[in-house]
């Protein structure tokens, strides 16, 4: 069952969040602005990204990263019998042009470049195919998605989108109960750490903003990032209920008798 849709309805940040939290493996294809990106994941980690197909492969990545010169890349291409990145990589290491670390860093850098570009796409179709792997011979570098999502969220500029994602600043936050959520591995800015230190179901987002002298936009952007990375979740605030105006009146649930509900259950079971 492939997940598909349009970035207008479900943006790249949200897609990565879903893939991260559900620990999915497979390939996400995004088409937009006349380009096609393919991003591969393994158990919720980003492992590969390409834009418009092969886009130069390993040689192109190393040349872009300044690890090999144009002349060296021509020599390697001429000598190699295979265009598979893994074989080319071995050739380059054996020839002393680069180290394994150079290759890993260059592939990682290229992958992140592609992914950060995608965060700027607001329109385009996407399709996630489970268990589809990168091309045979491609070099994959596992990258945790939390930091990527945080960085992508920092790049969100549209205020309206933030307002839609987080309309109610009177909600509170609590840390997610995901067992693999690790705050210590996450790179946060000083501002983000300040917000983290106030996270408590007793504190509404509005109160956290006030305590940190933050405006609506800034607090929305930070909280959106934390939510998107799966570090926190929205909850009703604890403590005394605030006074609500008439349109927001809370209708108290009726006192319900167990016997009545049991009769309903019995009926529905027999239907």
């Amino acid at each position, binding site marked *: *069952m*492939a*997940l*598909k*849709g*349009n970035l*207008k*309805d*479900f943006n790249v940040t*949200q897609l990565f*969040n*879903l893939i991260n*939290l*559900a620990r999915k493996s497979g390939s996400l294809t995004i088409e937009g602005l006349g380009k096609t990106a393919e991003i591969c994941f393994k158990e919720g980690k980003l492992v590969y990204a390409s834009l418009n197909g092969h886009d130069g492969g390993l040689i192109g990545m190393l040349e872009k990263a300044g690890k090999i010169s144009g002349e060296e890349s021509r020599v390697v291409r001429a000598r190699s019998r295979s265009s598979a990145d893994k074989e080319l990589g071995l050739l380059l290491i054996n020839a002393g042009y680069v180290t394994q670390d150079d290759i890993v860093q260059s592939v990682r850098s290229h992958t992140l470049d592609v992914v950060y570009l995608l965060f700027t796409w607001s329109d385009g179709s996407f399709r996630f195919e489970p268990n589809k792997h990168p091309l045979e011979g491609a070099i994959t570098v596992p990258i945790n998605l939390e930091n990527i999502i945080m960085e992508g969220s920092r790049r969100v500029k549209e205020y309206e989108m933030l307002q*839609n994602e987080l*309309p*109610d600043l009177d*909600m509170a936050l609590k840390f997610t*109960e995901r067992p693999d959520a690790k705050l210590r591995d996450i790179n946060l800015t000083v501002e983000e750490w300040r917000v983290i230190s106030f996270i408590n179901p007793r504190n509404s987002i509005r109160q956290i903003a006030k305590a940190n002298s933050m405006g609506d936009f800034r607090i929305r952007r930070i909280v959106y990032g934390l*939510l998107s990375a799966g570090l926190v*979740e*929205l*909850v*009703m605030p604890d403590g005394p209920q605030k006074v609500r105006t008439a*349109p*927001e*009146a*809370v*209708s*108290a*649930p*009726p*006192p*319900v*008798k*167990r016997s*009545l*509900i*049991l*009769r*309903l*259950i019995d*009926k*529905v*079971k027999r*239907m």
Partner: protein
Amino acid sequence: MQMENVKIVITGPFNAGKTEFISSVSEIDVVSTERRITDDSRVVKGRTTVAMDFGRIAVDDELMLYLYGTPGQKRFDFMWDILSEGMLGFVVLVDSARPETFREAKTLVNRFRRYSPTPYVIAANKQDMEDAWPPEDMRIALRLSSDTKVMSCVATDRESVRKVLLELLYSILESAD
């Protein structure tokens, strides 16, 4: 003998399957108060009329369960004020094959949770469609907590609807006296 009436509200974005959901289990033909054209409401002679579905299940000689299908858009909040009075709980139906409606569904859930602290269930409808998102992916997409019930649903299948209603009733039972 006094007849007791209780109600459950079925809500969700436009075309999520509310009519089909109620029709699958109602013992009467589902009454729609207005014919839909392009939206859940029409303005007729200066008054806004609202499309709503209404169904019924006779539990026994003394108890009747009414199912109300109401649109979830904010402009119909006045309907919610009316229907939520005395409501046992509600079902939010979401079209699993139309991710463009997820944002609206998420807004709706957040709004109704604040309005009425009654038990609710999310029904990930149209799970028989090829493009349907799995319920657990929808839980993440809708940013629902792990204790919110998200159920697979095919609103045209009576058995599927029955399971959703049962799950809601069990939630109501947990919160009952």
